[in-house]
């Protein structure tokens, strides 16, 4: 198993959070994982992105130039990362903010996720990233869904846990549900 993912969006869209979560869950499943955030001056200008790799063998470079999957939260990031996704790879994009026309590739599986809308449904636009992550998990089956609740718990500080854990879990579930729905439509 080797799955490398680029996750990108505005600062504040939870991009680093879900990247971390993905790595955390991968680790819990016993995989080799790396999480590599963009940092420093790269952060100025309000964008954020990171690379996550989950692999059954030791990971080489933690920076992935042609990831298998892109999880993209806004249009600027789509411009930047769409071309790099591997042929036959996956794109999960936030269709609440990104118009369909912007996605110009047909050699990859493209999964539009109205993440902001679904997030609002769950209770807060804040958790859009978890929606899209849930969708990724279900669609690719890269990791087991069961790993995420625990990973989430690890990542949220004990103080905030009570308040945020249920919301985050709900978002993840919603994402998973949405993916299942999509799949069914597709099949």
């Amino acid at each position, binding site marked *: 198993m080797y799955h490398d993912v680029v996750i990108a969006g505005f600062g504040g869209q939870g991009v680093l959070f879900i990247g*971390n979560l993905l*790595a*955390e869950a991968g*680790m819990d499943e016993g995989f*080799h*994982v*790396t*999480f*590599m*955030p963009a*940092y*420093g*001056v*790269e952060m100025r200008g309000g964008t954020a992105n990171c690379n996550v790799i989950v692999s059954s*063998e*030791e*990971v*080489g*470079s*933690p*920076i992935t*130039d*042609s990831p298998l999957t892109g999880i993209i939260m806004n249009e600027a990031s789509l411009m930047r990362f769409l071309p790099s996704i591997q042929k036959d790879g996956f794109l999960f994009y936030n269709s609440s903010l990104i118009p369909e026309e912007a996605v110009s590739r047909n050699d990859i599986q493209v999964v539009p996720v109205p993440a902001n809308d679904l997030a609002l449904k769950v209770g807060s636009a804040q958790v859009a990233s978890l929606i899209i992550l849930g969708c990724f998990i279900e669609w690719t089956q890269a990791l087991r869904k069961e790993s995420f609740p625990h990973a989430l718990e690890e990542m949220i500080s004990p103080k905030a846990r009570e308040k945020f854990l249920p919301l985050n879990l709900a978002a993840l579930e919603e994402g998973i549900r949405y993916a299942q729905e999509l799949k069914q439509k597709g099949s």
Partner: protein
Amino acid sequence: MKRKLVKGNEAVAMGAMDAGCKYYFGYPITPQNEIPEYLSQELPKIGGVFLQAESEIAAINMVLGAGASGVRAMTSSSSPGISLKQEGISYMAGSEVPGVIVNISRSSPGLGGISASQGDYWQAVKGGGHGDYHVIVLAPDSVQELYALTARAFDYADIYRNPVMVLGDAVLGQMKEPLLRELPPPMELPPKDWALTGRKGGRPQNVIKSLYLDDGELEKHIWKLVEKYERVKKETVLYETKEIEDADLILVAFGTAARICKTSQKMARDLGLRVGLIRPISLYPFPEEVLRSTSETTKKYLVVELNAGQMLEDVRLAVGPGAEVSFHGRPCGAGSLPKPNEILEKIKSVYGSFPKPTDMERGNSHETRV
């Protein structure tokens, strides 16, 4: 114990603390800021000292003072800041003060950039500061090693009374990987009866200095240091190898470059190419012996570095006269990390046809500098 997902820089800080380092002196610089940030949180909790100095120069000299006082002390910085510490490092080596310096290096020269690079190899391994001295240099290639080698660095510093450098890079410092927070096996440490403590009930004064003006005095001191470095060479060589026994070609790389090469090496084996890998972990002392011994059977080496060719020279010096050494360099900067595939292509080209025995110099046709 449980593995935790930890940032490389934090692993450095954890390794230091677990090794009993309670004194940190540093100055902000990307991409190593998580080290001071973590320690400024944690050290006060255990009665340690976190002090943000007015500059890198002040910081290394605080380490000199603290190390001379007999405790485990450290500083960390990145390339330009490490340049500023060179005078202090030379003083530490000259006056035999232990201490750990972490360089989470970035792209250079000058202000350069903040992405990963291995352009500081020479500075670390040959001559950053003035004079005949060496810094022991350890080059981790994972978060786990950042932790373990930082801890180990303190042992070496104490055993050899010498500054020890942990040479990472922006990728290693910034990435997260699972960390098992378990120390390497303990080493036997000599007593620090030379340390500053005040004369304590009238013992003879302890003096820590590097000035020797009498005829022959300094030379004697330097030969003493050289002898120590010979001991270091015998006792602290660290490296990792992969499938070198039957290798027709051996990749040589350290740190982040080695991680990438590990993937390429596997890809090559999958293609049926007999390719091995040697990863120097201690850069000084350089694992000459393993390179020399392989060169009895292996004739081709490919050095991969995130610079324009630095460790390359040490590889050339180490391998036997018959061996052919090629080079693949990507000297740093944003967007310049080589891909496993790119190195595989290089492996293929070198594996097949080879330069003539005399055609060994840098800059020949077998060097790609993308």
